[in-house]
């Protein structure tokens, strides 16, 4: 049973999104996603300043058995990336909602179309089933 904090929003593609006090959003991958990928060995981060549309592939998380895209859950600009992941990709395995954050976006508009924790729980359950 994976950990799905109720104060975050989620995308069907297993990203989580946290709205920060400055209006920017922090993005990472869910506990369910990190567990499905297994031990991460590499994270390819986007360039700061890059403009992304909702659904754009903008980072790659790679484990020993798979490499998956991380999709932007909302449109915006990349304002920060978690450089620590370059040296310690395992932070995503250890603390997916905290020190394992991937990037911060300045969103272009409202963060519509995302899932609540309860709805994402269903998505996670289905993909486990």
């Amino acid at each position: 049973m994976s950990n799905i904090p109720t104060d975050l929003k989620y995308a069907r593609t297993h990203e989580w999104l946290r709205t920060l006090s400055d209006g920017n959003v922090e993005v990472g991958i869910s506990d369910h996603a990190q567990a499905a990928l297994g031990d991460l060995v590499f994270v390819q981060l986007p360039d700061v300043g890059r403009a992304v549309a909702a659904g754009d592939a903008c980072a790659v998380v790679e484990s020993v058995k798979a490499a998956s895209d991380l999709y932007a859950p909302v449109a915006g600009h990349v304002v920060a990336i978690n450089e620590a992941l370059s040296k310690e990709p395992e932070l995503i395995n250890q603390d997916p909602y905290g020190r394992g954050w991937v990037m911060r976006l300045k969103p272009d508009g409202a963060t519509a179309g995302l899932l609540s924790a309860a709805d994402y729980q269903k998505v996670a359950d289905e993909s486990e089933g």
Partner: protein
Amino acid sequence: MPFIPHTDDDVREMLAVIGVPSIETLFEEIPAGLRVQSLAEVPEGLSELEVMQLMTERAHADGRPKCFIGAGAYEHHIPAAVWSTVTRGEFYSAYTPYQAEASQGTLQTIYEYQTMMASLTGMQVSNASLYDGATAVAEASLMAVRANRRSKSARILLPRSLHPHYRDVTLASASNQGLKFEELPYDRATGQLAPGALSGLDGQDITALVIQQPNFLGVMEEVDALTDWAHAHGALVVAVVNPISLALLKPPGQWGAKGADIAVGDGQPLGCPLSSGGPYFGFMTTRMEHVRQMPGRIVGRTVDLDGRPGFTLTLQAREQHIRRAKATSNICTNQGLLMMAGTVYLSLMGAEGMERVAAASMARTEQLAQLLTAIGGVRRTFSHPVFHEIVLSLDRPVAAVLAALAERDIQGGLDLTEYYPELGNALLVCATETKSQLDIEAYARAMTEALRAVRAA
């Protein structure tokens, strides 16, 4: 497991399932004009004995000429141990095994190949080989676009003095993937990349500069200055090199202040016979920072559960069986058998043997150039130093001279008229350690006679 073809019943059953009356129906969408109506040109099968007799007869029809053609494929001595090792049952396959880790011997050989190629090119990592030098340049161009994340232009600079086949293959396979290729001229006096070729590009977004050393015209490029120029302009450097030459020349990893970013080339000179044009193998090495953008397989060394050393395929997540359409390339197997020959060749020759081959080839070519240019009507086309290949300008059409040389059992070189018409009657010649003093003198005598014959005609 025996190969069991479908029976007529199997075929009927499958057709019934998909609701098609005959196999022929499946091909109807191919326009009739494109379909071969009969295979009448293909002869009936022959027995092994008949094939041997036919091929021996045809080989004799060519005579036993001395070959002075290089142009990307070079005749070197291949120690007998190379192919007697490679054709052992344990190795005799073109493929990386599907259950790779069950074949520790094959993986160890690939690991040793990678180690030697990285060392030879002065780079940190090597893949397990590519198809040939031409596709290696195409793959390196695609890789440079992935690796150079600061550049948005996907612009690759290709010298006109790059091997023409490498240029053609690279344009054919990468142009449709969004890459833009631009040709850089060479200097007509020196044969090097023209000094002004790059000056117009200052301030522009360039993804990579391809540098062949020595270039197709045999001439040594100013690799340090070119590499530094590229890096100062945010471009990566793709080095295209002859592995034998690296026994004497500075390896790409040491070009300029930072070294080239990707090194590629054809591995044929390492133990692969000329054999009517192939198969050969391509190689690719790079710096660790780019390893995830490198196509092809990589073997790594590891330890098993009991702490014993072993070998394994590594970084597979970027490959097509896992990453699907987003894989770094569609290369799944490689030229395993030829790569194996290259590995055995390198092991047998060692650093000292390689140096002797390279030095002897260079000396033979210089000797040949001196003898040939002493003949009236033959001169060096370019002023700059060469490795083991040189362009000569003749005062008669090259095709006629080559035909007259062939009558004297000399394959005199490559006629450049088709590839570089601007050079006029230009001939690319090469001598390796396989040519003796007598061979070279015989070529010079034959050239004197051939020119006389052509003039008289």
